[in-house]
């Protein structure tokens, strides 16, 4: 009989949903010693919406349970692990061997997916270098050191068609060749893990679930360009990712994959982690270098490009987490294999973080060229509560808005910019008919405005002026010329800012104005919010079914607009109400709603 393995998904999302309690319970049960079983932890499997997830693996067959609590964990242990019988009601995913049949209630989440970057996430223990090696890890590095010259590695990456996954999509092989061509006593390999876009968690999941794949990609890059020191610049908000990286780096040093004379090749290379300190602009490469150097993270003019003068003024190659994680796969399976996936000019896959009003929020890796509709409906399972799909915000605050009528465009580096948005790093926030597009534009601009480093006048002051206009609009105080002012300012900020932050900050405003002009006009001309979201422009009501008459809302109301007898449902007089929203947050029964 094959020994069963139990894996508990313990990325940040799993842990927040209570995976630790589940793991502790399973550990107690395993300690009873009634069965030969191996319990281990793994990274994010992607189905964040069904966390905590527990997998029971027997040989090649995998069965994953969702929404597991301590009680269900015990049931799974007693019925499935000891008794060989599935707890079928809770199975979310079932796979009989690598090419076997797929089943379970959430199997459709996986059908369109192609896992290259996430190949090991959720299947291996991220803190075990042995498991990474058994999954084929560090084979690509051996190949790069023993069988390939620097040029051959770069040519292979070029031939794969891999492009930077941080958002801009610059061809990775070409970037490497620039850094390789510049002679210097020291060169650096930098990994940008400063994933700052609100709504994006792709890189975090890779770092937490498969840190060695990123290290291996970086070491291969170092070999290709001739670098001797690497840095991973990681957000301080990702403590678990930093811890797992530290564990991985220590293990890689011990095994001789890092340090002096790597695998006897005569090549020296080591990696240090630098923790970010909370500044969105540090995702921009020149600002990131300034921050590693210990200064205020402000960008500078390019050229000179990092390949010539980067970190500490030395030739530097900078890619993001997802880009490096692709590299070992390309070297092992070959550039041709990689180039078969995706579209003509955008090869491979892209990892997306699905969030917002989508039914299945989580991490999904799909071939380039998959349409937005497929991502939202086939992978994401459609909109929560059966509401109408309105738009997606792609690429976070620097991306843009793509409306439902354009949802059939493929996701790749050529098609997305045609809509006015950018590919960005992979955040995909889904919005339904209750999301106000003016308000969402205000939200994103509020973010970039606060994160502007202040170096360029247009970014520092221009975004503030735009934000002021949007704030007025959401309060119903718009003026007829506001839209014209917003587009003029937006274009000027895009043209006059030094770095990507300012150059893309107006995108959410410009794209929502382009596709949802009516909604802007309703705010300006009719003081009306069609989505029923802007507080100042809606009516407040109390649901008599939920209200218990506790009087808290009436007490919290600053203008005495709420009336009713204790223990009887209350009512709101909207002619008196000043729409401060205090009653909503005071209610213990979620009985107050807007319309």
């Amino acid at each position, binding site marked *: 009989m094959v020994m069963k393995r139990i894996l508990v998904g313990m990325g940040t999302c799993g842990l927040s949903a209570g995976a630790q309690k589940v793991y502790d319970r399973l550990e107690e049960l395993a300690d009873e010693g009634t069965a030969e079983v191996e319990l281990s932890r793994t990274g994010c499997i992607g189905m964040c919406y069904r966390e905590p997830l527990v997998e029971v693996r027997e040989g090649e067959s995998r069965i994953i349970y969702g929404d597991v609590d301590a009680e269900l964990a015990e049931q799974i242990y007693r019925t499935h692990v000891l008794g060989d019988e599935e707890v079928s009601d809770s199975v979310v995913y079932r796979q009989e061997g690598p090419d076997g049949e797929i089943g379970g209630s959430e199997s459709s989440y996986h059908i369109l997916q192609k896992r290259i970057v996430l190949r090991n996430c959720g299947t291996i223990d991220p803190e075990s270098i042995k498991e990474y090696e058994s999954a084929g890890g560090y084979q690509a590095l051996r190949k790069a050191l023993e069988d390939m010259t620097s040029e051959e590695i770069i040519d292979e990456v070029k031939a794969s068609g891999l492009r930077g996954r941080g958002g801009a999509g610059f061809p990775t092989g070409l970037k490497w060749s620039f850094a390789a061509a510049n002679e210097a006593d020291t060169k650096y390999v930098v990994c940008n893990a400063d994933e700052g876009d609100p709504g994006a968690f792709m890189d975090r999941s890779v770092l937490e679930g498969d840190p060695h794949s990123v290290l291996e990609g970086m070491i291969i890059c170092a070999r290709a360009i001739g670098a001797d020191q690497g840095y991973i610049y990681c957000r301080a908000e990702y403590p678990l990712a930093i811890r797992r990286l530290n564990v991985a780096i220590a293990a890689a040093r011990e095994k001789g994959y890092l340090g002096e004379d790597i695998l006897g090749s005569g090549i020296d290379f080591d990696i240090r982690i630098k*923790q970010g300190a909370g500044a969105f602009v540090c995702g921009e490469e020149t600002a990131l270098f300034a921050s590693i150097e210990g200064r205020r993270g402000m960008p500078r003019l390019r050229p000179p490009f990092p390949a010539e003068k980067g970190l500490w003024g030395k030739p530097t190659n900078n890619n993001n987490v997802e880009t490096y994680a692709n590299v070992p796969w390309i070297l092992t399976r070959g550039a041709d294999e990689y180039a078969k996936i995706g579209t003509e000019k955008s090869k491979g896959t892209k990892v997306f973080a699905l969030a917002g009003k989508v039914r299945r929020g989580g991490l999904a890796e799909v071939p380039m060229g998959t349409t937005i509709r497929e991502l939202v409906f086939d992978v994401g399972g459609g909109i929560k509560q059966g509401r109408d799909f309105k738009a997606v915000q792609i690429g976070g605050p620097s991306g843009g808005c793509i409306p439902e009528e354009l949802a059939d465009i493929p996701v790749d580096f050529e098609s997305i910019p045609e809509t006015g948005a950018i590919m960005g790093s992979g955040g995909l926030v889904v919005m339904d008919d209750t999301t106000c597009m003016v308000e969402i534009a205000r939200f994103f601009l509020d973010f970039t405005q606060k994160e502007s480093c202040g170096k360029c006048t247009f970014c520092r002051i221009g975004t503030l002026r735009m934000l002021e206009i949007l704030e007025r609009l959401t309060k119903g105080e718009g003026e007829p010329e506001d839209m014209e002012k917003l587009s003029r300012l937006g274009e000027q900020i895009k043209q006059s800012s030094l770095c990507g932050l300012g150059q893309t900050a107006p995108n959410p405003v410009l794209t929502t104005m382009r596709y949802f002009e009516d909604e802007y006009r309703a705010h300006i001309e009719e003081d009306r919010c069609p989505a029923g979201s802007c507080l100042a422009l809606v009516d407040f009501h109390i649901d008599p079914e939920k209200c218990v008459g506790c009087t808290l809302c009436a007490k919290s109301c600053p203008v005495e607009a709420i009336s009713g007898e204790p223990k009887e449902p209350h009512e709101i007089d909207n002619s008196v109400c000043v729409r401060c929203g205090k009653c909503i947050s005071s209610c213990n029964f979620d009985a107050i709603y807007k319309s």
Partner: protein
Amino acid sequence: MATETTNRQEDFTYRLWRYDGQPGELIPLLQSAQDHFGYIPRRAISYIASVTGIPESEVYGVITFYSQFRLRPMGKYVIRACAGTACHVSGASSILDAIQDELGVESGETTEDGLFTLTSVACLGCCSLAPVVMVNDETFGRLTPASVRKVVKEIARRGDKQ
């Protein structure tokens, strides 16, 4: 209490003593100072400046650039209310309102009893659990104004007992 403060100070001094003159160590030094004191006190800025040779004004400039660094002590429980995109579209602002009302402080402030500091953060990365609030290292997801009030009350009770 007194010995604990002394220990932390010794730890921090040790790190400074270990400073190897490498450029780029300023941010890690500030991070370790904040780990030990809970914030960056005035005297830590002077220490760091004297050891590294970086002018105090520049150290201060770096501190104020990054949102992680704090120049004032924090409460025993730090509530980080997520204002990321997914949380925002799921009603994060009414969650923040409820906490502000429950504690009687605005975002960025500390309660008078020193128990809570309330801050609003860009994204905690648990988007599928939106709206989310973190209290120290513990995450609470799928909140409503009513349920977040319960969370705060529960922690306040826990905090009072200790």
